[in-house]
Structures are given as C-alpha cells and as structure tokens.
C-alpha cells in the first residue's frame, strides 16, 4: 500500500517537474496578487501590517483554486484515471498520493514564499513565523477540499468556474483561522488556538476527503 502511495507521489512530482512552467504560473500569480495590494492601498506601514495576513491568505486561496484543474483533468483525458479506478489498491489511497503531490508543488512553495512577503509587509518575526505555520497547516486542507471540487466537476464544460463556486465557501473556515492566527499574535494574544484548530481541520480533511474524492471520481468517469 505504501509502495503505491510512494509511486503515485513520485509520478506526479516527476510530471510537475517536467511541466514546471505550469507550476511556476501558479506561484507567480500568488506573488503578483500579493505585491499588487500595497500599490493599490498605499504604503502606510501600519495599514500594511494589519492587512498582510488577510491578503496573503486570500491570494493563497486563489492560487490553490487556479491549480485545481491540474489535479485530475490530464489523467482523465489520457485514460490514466481509468487505470487508477480499476487498481488493485484502494482508490482513496491513490487520491491521497495525488493530493499530497499537489500540496508539495503548490502549498509548500507558497508557505516558503510567505516568509519573503512577510518582510515586504513589515511583519515581525513572530507574525511571519505564525503566518508560515498557519499556511503549512492550512494549505493541505486547500488541496484536499479542492480535490473534492475538482473530482465533482471533472469533464464538465465550464468546470473551472463551477469549481470556484463549489470550493470557495468551504475554504472560509481555513481563511478565518489562518488570517486570525497572525492577527492574534500581532495583538499579543498568541496564535496557538487558531493553529490547533487548523491542524484539526487538516487531520479531518486527510481522513475524510479521499473517500469523497474517490466516490466523486467513480461518478464522473461513468
């Protein structure tokens, strides 16, 4: 079972490496959206410090949405997904491997880039560390919940817009907890409870969403 998981992760990482322009687009989008905001609202340091967590988190959500169609569409079009559906190994396991690879090429770089963006918004060390921790715990949830939306809209025309409508409302708790954790640290309260809740959400999503994705894929491929 672990061998299959590792094989799926390795395959998707290799594909992402071969198609690195696609991956870079998502990250570039994230950076550009965040850097646009100071240009729009003005360079008042106190204002920037207070809006930074929200801006970074909203941009992370949008970047995650943008990358979701990469998750299953190509495998669906070339027939690999059929082979996954009739694998001797459980489908939720394969789904977990694919989402893990998706997180490694979107969530992890976004978390790392956030350190630089924190400096740009003049965040303190504690705030930046909390922002990164919240992204590290929250982005897996974005990938996992996004996978449910991507699987449900697979093969539909206009699926890209539909997936945002389906998935964005479900991202709201992650957004509130993620941005809230940094604001709490800035207010001197400590972000611990927020991060714990985010961690709980991540565990919840890891356990439950692969089953939902698997069921949605079987319906979509019929």
């Amino acid at each position, binding site marked *: 079972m672990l061998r299959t998981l*590792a094989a799926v992760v390795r395959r998707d990482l290799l594909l992402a490496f*071969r198609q690195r322009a696609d991956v870079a687009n998502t990250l570039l989008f994230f950076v550009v959206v965040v850097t646009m905001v100071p240009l729009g609202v003005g360079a008042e340091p106190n204002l920037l410090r207070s809006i930074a967590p929200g801006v970074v988190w909203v941009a992370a959500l949008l970047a995650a949405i943008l990358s979701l169609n990469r998750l299953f569409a190509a495998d669906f079009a070339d027939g*690999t997904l*059929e*082979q*996954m559906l009739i*694998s*001797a*190994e459980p489908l939720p396991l394969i789904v977990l491997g694919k989402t893990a690879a998706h997180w490694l090429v979107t969530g992890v770089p976004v978390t790392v880039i956030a350190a630089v963006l924190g400096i740009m918004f003049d965040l303190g060390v504690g705030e930046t560390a909390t922002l990164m921790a919240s992204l590290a715990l929250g982005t897996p949830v974005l990938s996992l919940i996004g996978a449910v939306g991507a699987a449900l809209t697979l093969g539909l025309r206009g699926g890209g817009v539909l997936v945002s409508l389906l998935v964005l409302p479900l991202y709201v708790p992650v957004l509130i907890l993620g941005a809230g954790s940094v604001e709490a640290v800035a207010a001197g309260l400590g972000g611990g409870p927020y991060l714990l809740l985010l961690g709980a959400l991540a565990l919840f999503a890891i356990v439950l969403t692969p089953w939902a994705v698997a069921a949605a894929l079987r319906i979509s491929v019929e």
Partner: protein
Amino acid sequence: MLEALDLECTRGERVLFSGLGLRVEPGTLLRVAGPNGTGKTSLLRVLCGLLQPTHGEMRWRGEPIRALKEEYWSALAYVGHLNGVKDDLTAVENLRASAGIAGLEADKGALRGALDAVGLVGFEDSLARFLSQGQKRRIALARLFLSGKVPLWILDEPFTALDARGVASLSALVARHLAGDGIVVLTTHQEVPVDAARAETVELGNGQGTPC
C-alpha cells in the same frame, strides 16, 4: 470464470443492449463484435466495473464484482481505448508509473523486459511525446507483460495502430495467455488472428445482445 447476468446498458436515452448474458470459462477468447456505436466499449467498461449497468450484474468466480471491488480488479488487466500514456514521461517511466498505480511490483529488469517484448528496444528513454501512435500503443500493451499472473485481460481494439509484426506478437501473447487458462475479452474490427482452442463471439447491434 466471468459471468454476466441479464445486462442492460443505456447511454443517454438510448438502450445499447439489454438482456445480455455471458459465461466465459478459463481458456476462452471472447470477441465482442458489432458496428460502430453499438456499445462494444461500453460493454467492456461494464465488464471492468468502470460503468454500472442499468440492469443486471457481473460475477467473477460466482461473486458479484460490485462486492469484490479491489479483489476483482487485482485479477484484471484492462487496456482501454485510451492508452494512459503521459507525453512528458519516457517509455520506461510510463510503464513504472502504470505498475505503481496498478499495485504491481516491477523492478528495472522487468520493466525493460516488458518494453523489449513489445518491440520498444532503444526507445526506453525517449519521451512519449516523440513516439508514434503505434509506439504509444505498445507502451500501453507492455502492461500485459508485467501482469503475468493476472487471469483476466480486457482489451479494447488492441490491434489498432500496430504494424504487422506488432499484431503477430500480440496475437502470440494472447494465445499464450489463453493456453495458460487465462481469459481474454477483446473488441476488434479485424479478423482475430489468434489461435484459440475456445473462442466465442458476442454480436452487438440489434439492440439485443445475444451470444452466438
């Protein structure tokens, strides 16, 4: 033994076939025949469990495949209409990925051996985007060499895009699988160039699939 009981399949509003019964014993080649659009691929997808029939059920060794799931799929190798080959991976990487997805164990030697067997010597490390249609088809068919002990093969138009030598070597492979008490279900528009001790044909196309 593969059995189908009173299968009915609808796509959209149209009934492709109904009341279809099958019973395929080990060592049998089952050919699904019929003009375009009569549901050959749909029937194969139903046999694989990828498509749920609107009526009836499939049984493998007496158990419904809906209940067996992974246990049934571990006895099945399916080469569909789509190759499942990634343009951005090399031939050997494609085959390794397919083996990983299917849950098969395959070391480097086995992968190279399978590619040699389908006549892709010298192309192992070429990206699939630079290979021809026929060569991509061969990568998909190389999966059959990896799944040596899998008893049931379901092949959708396996001979398309293959050259004369490719057709001959695939026919030999199918014949060897049948001789080892395997089951092969395939669709083809060509005459089946396979020596099979036991061959049956299902003719689709009159709305009522009846085994001949």
